[in-house]
């Protein structure tokens, strides 16, 4: 979880990690998600497919963590 939060803060220094609507509120855009996914693949040694890149998987720290865990 801490690694993920570090990555998110690097990506968007002003990010509110409690936020439950990071994509819905436009805090993370498509470009952030592409960058984030690259970081996640590298950091957590997982594979992420196109079908995983949907807003629901990136709306909160918990959702992103759940995605990582499902790929581990």
């Amino acid at each position, binding site marked *: 979880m801490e690694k993920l939060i570090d990555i998110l803060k690097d990506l968007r220094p002003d990010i509110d990690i409690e936020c439950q609507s990071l994509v819905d509120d*436009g805090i993370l855009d*498509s470009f952030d998600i592409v960058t984030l996914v690259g970081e996640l693949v*590298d950091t957590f040694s997982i594979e992420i497919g196109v079908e995983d890149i*949907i807003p629901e998987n990136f709306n909160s720290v918990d959702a992103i963590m759940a995605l990582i865990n499902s790929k581990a």
Partner: protein
Amino acid sequence: MKRVDRYETISALISKQIRKGVKTNNFLTENDLKIEIENNSLYYYEYDGGLLILRDRTTHYILNYYINDITKNIEKIFEKDVVVEIVSRPNNNDNEVIKYFEKQNFACCIERVRYAHTCDEIVDNDTADAIQLCKTNDAEKVYEILKENFDSYTGCIPTKERLIKDVENGNVYIYKDENIKGILHIDKSKISSEIKHLIVVENEREKGIATKLINKYFNEVNAKKKTVWTGKENNCARKFYEKCGYELDGYTSVVLKKKG
């Protein structure tokens, strides 16, 4: 270059490319890719610098890329022209990728800017009874009008199959009395919405049809953020959107073309 006949094939190829630092303009969803596969229009070319995904549009290919090594050149010679759009975020012009494609003999053909409309309160109810959701029996005519009025390479014209799906999903409005005089083609999700095409046919311009179409859109589509891309040099369109409350949001794009 190979044609993709199964979604799993392209999904696996893309997964292999997604890693830290990859440069991509691929925001195609699983559904977008599946529609292309159904139509036999999706191809890929893998090289040691990355992966190219090509959507066949008869006269040309539209290119989506994953580039992991910009020192590697694309050696492939394509039998058709290839068009690629590189989008840059505000204050972050992706010059490195633009220069990479220029080195591969791509040349700039149009620059675009993006406008956003974030105002929740829409006060103008001036729309018209002639505006209706497009039905499938009008899809063919709508397709013809889009083809006549937008550039075949840079006008983001959907395939006929894609347009029919957009019609079925309620993403196409038309202004129609005896004939179709105006079209509003959109993309929408619960979060955001984008105007893909807004056109009034030539002899019906300057009668307020575009304004009525956009008012209908504002009144019916409830997305938090509404965006539209338009040509940087298209002053007429830019003035229209500004009048409708849109503001530049800093996103820009460059469309480059390589002769086949």
